[in-house]
């Protein structure tokens, strides 16, 4: 067994990077910009995959990059580099200043109102150095244990794409010419198992299970993850097609998240101002059933979607997007807020380059009261979807059509597995046809939804 000694990179002192970001802003202003914003991203990653008991890959590295956005009045442009030398930084700034001359005057562009800047007080508990605390051999062992639990669970688990353990930390710094200077660190670790089950006729099915956490202490045991993964692969063995039918469809939480993604796409200020969403202009209107409440909250302690400030330096907040079926708010950054004559919801997401986009915080559909079992028990004939393939949702028209696999519901119980089928409908109707909402909301990422039952969908098959 190789002893991988991870060198958690002793980066430049934080104050140095903050100073560097502020310096880049000053250089841009000295070069004639009317406003400027700099971002520095720094990160380390470790990952290992163990397959059939042997280490397959071991990867570790650190990297960092620097981006700047400059304004000449209402014109803006951005550049980024991984070259932190003085020469690299001078080139970064001068290129941005040149590039900004070719963009258009956009009356809505610019940094946010200075009064909005700030960061949430207190510790959001987003960084735990323990993700790197395990010695190399034990990290590999996490991956090995997850896979072994899956392989040992049932003799029909004969192969595997492996178990894996990943850890990462990131550090982000944002500075602008209106005086904002902030930074935060986040950490992450995860354990995954991807076992393959094989039936007597040789047909194979693969599924996976995982857990992720900001702290190693809170990470579920690899054995638990491996066992669930095995159960998920096994239950797909012997899958068949079904006849085309219109039946109730139950979405497993892992796939019901996708419904939230579609809502996000629909309320994203960028799609709204361009009219690329059927939810544009629907503020204050019923767009879903009374039972549907959707919230975005970037302030949850320890959340995967939390941060003290957004990509423009504005403290994150809690926004009720849909309340009892009524569309209450879009999700906005300062640009789309100005376009729509509204206030930013602090959902700006800032990469290294380009204008800020819009991203969710901790974004979820509020849970109901029924257990998944009770929801399934209420269905005579229906489909329980555990996996979608493809991305067949069109937010302009609402058209919805996806490849699917899962289990058939008969007489209120899960029976045989099904595959090579489609689920089709229209999102405009689907949001009203969420007839049951489970009590099983759980965050395994920044977007979460409980089990959902949606009626009126067409299952396409033979």
């Amino acid at each position: 067994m190789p002893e991988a000694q991870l060198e958690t990179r002793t980066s430049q002192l934080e104050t140095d990077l903050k100073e560097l970001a502020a310096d880049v802003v000053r250089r841009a202003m000295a070069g004639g910009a009317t406003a400027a914003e700099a971002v520095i991203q720094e990160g380390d990653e470790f990952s290992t995959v163990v397959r059939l008991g042997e280490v397959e890959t071991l990867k570790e590295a650190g990297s960092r990059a620097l981006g700047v956005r400059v304004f000449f009045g209402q014109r803006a442009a951005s550049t980024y580099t991984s070259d932190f030398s003085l020469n690299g930084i001078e080139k970064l700034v001068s290129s941005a200043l040149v590039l900004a001359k070719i963009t258009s005057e956009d009356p809505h562009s610019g940094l946010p109102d200075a009064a909005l800047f700030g960061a949430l007080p207190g510790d959001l508990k987003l960084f735990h150095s323990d993700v790197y605390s395990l010695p190399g051999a034990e990290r590999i062992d996490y991956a090995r244990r997850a896979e072994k639990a899956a392989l040992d669970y049932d003799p029909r688990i004969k192969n595997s794409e492996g178990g894996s353990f990943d850890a990462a930390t990131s550090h982000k710094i944002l500075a602008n010419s209106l005086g904002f200077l902030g930074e935060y660190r986040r950490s992450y670790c995860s354990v995954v198992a991807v076992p393959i089950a094989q039936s007597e006729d040789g047909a194979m099915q693969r599924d996976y299970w995982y857990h992720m956490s900001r702290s190693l202490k809170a990470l579920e045991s690899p054995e638990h993850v491996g066992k669930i993964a095995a159960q998920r692969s096994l239950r797909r063995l012997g899958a068949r097609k079904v006849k085309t039918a219109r039946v109730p469809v139950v979405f497993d939480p892992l796939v019901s998240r996708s419904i939230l993604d579609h809502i996000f796409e629909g309320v994203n200020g960028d799609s709204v101002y361009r009219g690329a969403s059927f939810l544009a202009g629907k503020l204050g209107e019923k767009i879903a059933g009374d039972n549907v409440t959707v919230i975005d909250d970037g302030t949850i302690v320890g959340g995967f979607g939390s941060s003290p400030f957004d990509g423009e330096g504005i403290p994150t907040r809690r926004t009720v997007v849909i309340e009892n079926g009524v569309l209450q708010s879009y999700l906005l950054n300062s640009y789309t807020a100005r376009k729509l004559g509204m206030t930013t919801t602090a959902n700006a997401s800032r990469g290294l380059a380009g204008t800020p986009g819009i991203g969710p915080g901790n974004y979820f559909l509020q849970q109901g009261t029924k257990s998944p079992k009770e929801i399934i028990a209420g269905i005579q004939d229906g489909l329980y979807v555990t996996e979608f393939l493809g991305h067949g949702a069109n937010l302009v028209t609402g058209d919805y059509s996806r490849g699917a696999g899962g289990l058939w519901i008969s007489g209120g119980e899960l029976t045989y597995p099904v595959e090579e089928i489609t689920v089709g409908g229209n999102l405009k109707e689907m949001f009203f046809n969420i007839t049951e909402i489970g009590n099983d909301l759980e965050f395994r990422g920044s977007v979460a939804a409980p089990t959902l039952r949606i009626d009126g969908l067409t299952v396409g098959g033979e």
Partner: protein
Amino acid sequence: MNIQTVDKQKFFFDQYGLTHRDLERYLAAALSAGGDYADLYFEYQTSTSLSMDESLVKSASQGISAGCGVRVLSGERTGYAYTDNLSPERLLHAAKTAALIASGSTKETVAAFKEKPHRSLYPIALASVDAEITAKVALLQRADVAARAYDSRIKEVRISYGDELRRILIVGSDGTFAEDSQPLARFNVGCIAKTETNSARGSHGGGGRVALDFFSGDKSPEHFAKESARQAVLQLDAREAPAGDMEVVLGPGWPGVLLHEAIGHGLEADFNRKKTSAFAGLLGKRVASDKCTIVDNGTMPWRRGSLNFDDEGQPTQNTVLIEKGILKNYLSDKLSSRLTGLPDTGNGRRESYEHIPMPRMTNTYMLSGEDNPEDILKSVKRGMYAVNFGGGQVDITNGKFVFSASEAYLIEDGKITAPLRGATLIGNGPDVLTRVSMVGNDLQLDEGVGTCGKDGQSVPVGVGIPTIKVDRLTVGGTARREGGGFMQ
């Protein structure tokens, strides 16, 4: 060890003061714990992106990303480390980190570097990334005008342009020494058409490993704009697609995404070596009708999926995957080739220096057959004619794949009738091509927009197909037939 003299001036040698002696030293460090093979992948990428929306150039950005990935192979194991700091200390540290994967006692030595014969699939005097930015802005403006002029119902037009130049140097302990400059450009126009009651979208784009003048020929901004606008307007009147199994005719070109999803991924050697693919063990067996011959060809000039060398320094090639229905080859990289003894087909690719290479497709397409496309349509009593697609996805273990039609029509009694709303099609990779009963004589490749994702890594690819008829495929529409039941 012996170093052959290299006659050209080398980018990384100039830029970072690297010497052959340095490269040997890093490779030796990478092999210091007993690895079988090591390589270094140096990358220096410059890129530009521009976007126009509401007739304004709202975003312009440029960037530089540089770094080096060090890989060590030891049996089936891969150790990997990368650094964005190309100083000798950091490179040596990365090499020593990657070395830890191995625990052998024997020490492989570093062979003398042998530069690969020169090849030039994309000879460009001035990479588009270095071209005048105002010329690119002019392309955006032309597309905006053309899309809005197409039809008064076109209300929103969003145009994006991106290009990059990737300079790479790959050196391996087996003597591999390959250097390349890989240009890439892509233009895209998205339109939204609106009436009082209806909205619809269209999207079209293209590009390749081309210079900016590519867009001044027939692949002009106007070409992409009109096609995008046409699709959006057409969709305003589309009706619900049918649901269930039916005959499906695919038009030529981008519908080749069927091949990419249905068989391409399943034939990547890593999945087959590990026996996790539905195609494992099928070499020499029938997996398609005898009308189907499918290749993966990385050697086509100017194409988005082409490369002079793959990202392991191996020349790309034209690999026959399926010949008259029989499975002939998998797509392999160095690791799979070492472990299976099957040839390295030059398909080892990676997204960037931060990523471990793996078998990936290049340009994947079906060769023309003998049928007249009109005869193919005439042969269908009731089915779907799909000519444009969005993306797709596959589960390589059970072979199920999907791809989403964005422009499709109903075929009734051999005639194309109504346009249909978008729908996902789903099938089973190992048998869908056995139901290809007609293959047209009209092979086309896509216009250069494809990006393939695998294990979190994106790489540019191409696809192509002639008009084909699949006797049965499941369509994910929603339409009911009058009197209940579904159209089938």
